[in-house]
């Protein structure tokens, strides 16, 4: 109704009539209508105002005492008449101005706000008010909280706040307490307002979307920290944060703790906060109380949230359960219903009185310890029903020790949980196999080993220390950038979640004729690299199929197999160079891949998945181009990784294949022609470790085949014999120094050579190649 964009807009001098008419609706207010607070009062006589206020104060106070504190006159005035609020608001705005223009009241609310359940206004308890502005200001504040609904800056809004009903009681207490002389520790005057949220922290969430009112004054100079009815007292009577942490079902645990808030306060800071820092920002301890997200309602929320996994959680993680329960829960609802949980929870469980009035005379430290001990007693009762029954027994003995260590609990339980929560959150993941592959594999291996050990040796099961990992799956939160209601346009806020685009890079495709030869070469290489990458991802997928197979349902398995086959085929095609309708004329594609180190490794990994023919094909291609590959591999020396898969393939090859393989290695054409004096191809092969090892493997395989079958095609095959002659000739010819050192020398080579060479040469070969084991 009465909405003011800024204080300047407030119709100060106009609309006196409006106020008049409104004032008539409520008689109490009427007294103060124009004469003292209204626009008509030119004379700024605060003393008079003070007295009137004092009178007014007595009236509601008395009324409240009668009514047992639930509904007071003030509440009547306030709560049910939204129209009254409007006028009072307007009046307050004016009176603020008149009283102390330096103090800007961020009065932004609409009258409808009061009736709006989701919104909880901040209350200004007198206790937290700065002691500087005692006197009229404070007394005026008695009414103030009821009338004013100040909306603080966005950051403080995050903390769910109580609503009207608590308000009443709180004010009552405010009043009663204010009757007492103000206690001691005044805040450090002149110090900057202590912020619950460090400066520069982006707000955790959007500034309350249901926050329709305009922010009249975004400058939050006088933020009254919200006070629940329970803790309105000034410092001395209030529970210290240390006590708060001991509160069972502490709301601190459950509160959607904004990660930006640093809860670690020094004692001095806490004193400042509690002692009524002038800014009166909510300290975490206070908002925690205020939010009212207590444990037991959380327990009811939890099963829903955590999908039953919580039950498996070990008690130590109970704190975390609360944590994990809280963020998801309020989060979706937070948007529309920030103190929803709070209010709802308040109804469920009225918070037990945490501090007792009769201890107010005690020193804060003393009281703190006292309450701690009370807390422990309470915990004792609780935990005896809880899981760790033996906790109770230690309790009594340790209580003394607690007392003797005054530095204990410097770190609040809340803070501890917070740190632990951070660490646990980092371990949360939706797909652990994806996010934490190596860790998962490592532990699987470990477990296999330990399981194997268990089977063999039936000793006591070695307890392996395991990492406690969160049992809750991470919920993906869609990041919503900060928005302010009512503002035109969007904020250009760049944060880690939504980084700003810094460089405008445009992709331009080159035209064909511009390319020079080098570019073409380069592009070709790039093409090969891309092919390798694509094939590699296919390979990784294929390798993963086994695991997926195990995890999948029966019905899905055929589909999985099919997928796998397809991927294998496409892998092969990629590697070999897919040619449509051609007979694979060139190895070019393959050779290109094999020139790259990663390509070689990939081929080695792919080979086990390929069929025999495909693998043999690859083998052939390798052998065919071996000298070239050797030359290219000079730097990398990765060819050796191919030996193992090659040998596996060889094992399955029929003799015909072996022959042709040898042929490839020796690079002899199909039809025997006059052998060149020096077989360069073979020579190159022999001089290379991989080549020689491969040759040996082939020869060894041939020998196996020969020796296994009495009359084999191999023997009958002239080609093989020819090849053997060539090979032995070359081996003899090549100087020993040039000969490479093979990875392993198969034992049956000697017998192989013995078939084809005479004894003398055999001896030479023997020594040269070190075929006899004893020599080496």
């Amino acid at each position, binding site marked *: 109704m009465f909405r003011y964009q800024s204080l300047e807009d407030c119709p100060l001098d106009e609309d006196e009539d409006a106020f008049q008419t409104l004032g008539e609706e409520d008689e109490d207010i009427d007294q103060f209508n124009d004469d003292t607070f209204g626009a008509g009062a030119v004379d700024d006589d605060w003393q008079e105002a003070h007295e009137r206020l004092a009178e007014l104060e007595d009236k509601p106070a008395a009324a409240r005492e009668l009514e047992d504190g639930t509904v007071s006159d003030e509440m009547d005035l306030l709560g049910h008449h939204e129209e009254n609020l409007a006028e009072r608001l307007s009046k307050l705005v004016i009176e603020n101005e008149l009283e102390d223009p330096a103090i800007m009241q961020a009065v932004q609310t609409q009258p409808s706000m009061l009736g709006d359940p989701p919104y909880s206004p901040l209350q200004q308890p007198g206790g937290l008010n700065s002691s500087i502005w005692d006197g009229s200001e404070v007394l005026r504040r008695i009414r103030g909280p009821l009338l004013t609904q100040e909306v603080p800056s966005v950051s403080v809004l995050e903390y769910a706040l109580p609503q009207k009903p608590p308000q009443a009681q709180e004010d009552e207490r405010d009043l009663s307490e204010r009757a007492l002389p103000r206690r001691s520790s005044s805040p450090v005057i002149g110090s900057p307002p202590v912020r619950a949220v460090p400066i520069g922290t982006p707000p955790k969430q959007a500034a309350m979307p249901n926050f329709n009112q305009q922010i009249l004054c975004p400058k939050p100079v006088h933020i009254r920290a919200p006070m629940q009815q329970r803790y309105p007292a000034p410092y001395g009577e209030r529970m210290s944060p240390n006590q708060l942490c001991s509160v069972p079902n502490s709301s601190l645990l459950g509160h959607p703790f904004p990660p930006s808030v640093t809860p670690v306060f020094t004692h001095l800071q806490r004193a400042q906060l509690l002692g009524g820092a002038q800014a009166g920002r909510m300290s975490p301890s206070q908002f925690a109380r205020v939010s009212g997200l207590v444990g037991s309602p959380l327990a009811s929320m939890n099963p829903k949230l955590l999908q039953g996994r919580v039950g498996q959680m070990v008690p*130590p*993680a109970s*704190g975390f359960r609360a944590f994990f329960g809280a963020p998801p829960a309020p989060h979706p609802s937070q948007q529309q219903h920030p103190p929803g949980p709070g209010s709802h929870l308040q109804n469920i469980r009225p918070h037990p009185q945490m501090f007792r009035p009769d201890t107010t005379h005690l020193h804060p430290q003393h009281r703190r310890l006292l309450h701690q001990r009370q807390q422990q007693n309470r915990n004792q009762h609780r935990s005896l029903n809880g899981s760790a029954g033996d906790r109770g027994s230690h309790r009594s003995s*340790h209580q003394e*020790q607690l007392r003797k260590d005054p530095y204990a*609990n*410097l770190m609040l339980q809340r803070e501890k949980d917070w740190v*632990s929560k951070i660490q646990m959150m980092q371990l949360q993941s939706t797909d652990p196999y994806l996010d934490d592959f190596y860790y998962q594999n490592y532990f699987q291996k470990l477990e296999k080993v330990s399981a194997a050990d268990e089977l063999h040796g039936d000793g006591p099961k070695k307890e392996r220390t395991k990492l*406690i*990992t969160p049992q809750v799956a991470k919920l993906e939160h869609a990041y919503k950038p900060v928005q302010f209601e009512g503002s035109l346009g969007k904020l250009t806020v760049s944060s880690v979640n939504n980084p700003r685009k810094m460089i405008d890079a445009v992709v331009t495709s080159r035209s064909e004729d511009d390319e020079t030869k080098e570019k073409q070469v380069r592009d070709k290489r790039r093409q090969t690299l891309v092919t390798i990458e694509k094939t590699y991802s296919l390979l990784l997928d294929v390798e993963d199929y086994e695991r997926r197979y195990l995890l999948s349902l029966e019905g899905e398995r055929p589909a999985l197999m099919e997928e796998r086959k397809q991927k294998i085929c496409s892998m092969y095609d990629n590697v070999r160079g897919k040619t449509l309708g051609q007979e694979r004329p060139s190895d070019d594609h393959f050779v290109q891949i094999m020139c790259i180190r990663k390509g070689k490794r990939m081929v080695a990994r792919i080979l086990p998945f390929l069929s025999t023919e495909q693998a043999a094909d690859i083998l052939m291609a390798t052998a065919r181009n071996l000298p070239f590959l050797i030359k290219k591999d000079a730097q990398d020396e990765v060819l050796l990784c191919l030996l193992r898969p090659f040998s596996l393939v060889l094992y399955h090859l029929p003799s015909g294949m072996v022959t042709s393989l040898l042929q490839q290695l020796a690079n002899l054409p199909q039809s025997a022609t006059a052998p060149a004096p020096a077989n360069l191809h073979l020579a190159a092969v022999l001089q290379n470790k991989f080549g020689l090892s491969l040759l040996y493997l082939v020869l060894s395989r041939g020998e196996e085949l020969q020796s296994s079958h009495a009359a084999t095609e191999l023997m009958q095959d002239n080609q093989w014999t020819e090849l053997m002659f060539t090979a032995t000739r070359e081996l003899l010819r090549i100087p020993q120094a040039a000969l490479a050192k093979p990875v392993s020398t198969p034992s049956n080579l000697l017998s192989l050579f013995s078939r084809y060479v005479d004894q003398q040469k055999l001896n030479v070969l023997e020594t040269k190649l070190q075929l006899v084991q004893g020599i080496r």
Partner: protein
Amino acid sequence: MNYMPGTASLIQDIDRRACWLLPGCGEQPGAAASRPSSGFPVAGEKHLVLLRDGRTLIGYLRSIDQFANLVLHQTVERIHVGKKYGDIPRGIFVVRGENVVLLGEIDLEKESDTPLQQVSIEEILEEQRVEQQAKQESEKLKVQALKERGLSVPRADTLDEY
């Protein structure tokens, strides 16, 4: 026994006795047995911190955060030379997490039976000085020898030398 990730595993140590009385603390029932059951009051658990510059600090860990920033109370810097060691009382330490190499809890029972011999501060400082000198000289000789042979040792990283 299961452990928490990261610095959270030490959180329980901070106010060991007091901590597990409160809800939400990560204390295992089993671990309660491992604590000294002597009965006389023990104020928290002592921790030993090894810093990147080689210093060894021993104190009561009062606060820790996710970066392993530490607040140590009644800290003592322990200097070891050979079989001797000396303690220098330092008071309260606030250590930035990046300088912590390792941090662990001291078993108070085992603390008493060490083969090491405690000496006074002056003595241990003197010993340390002597040791440093000897090391420097040997280092110099080494560099000299290498230089004669035409080799050079790359300069060590100035940050992590001890």
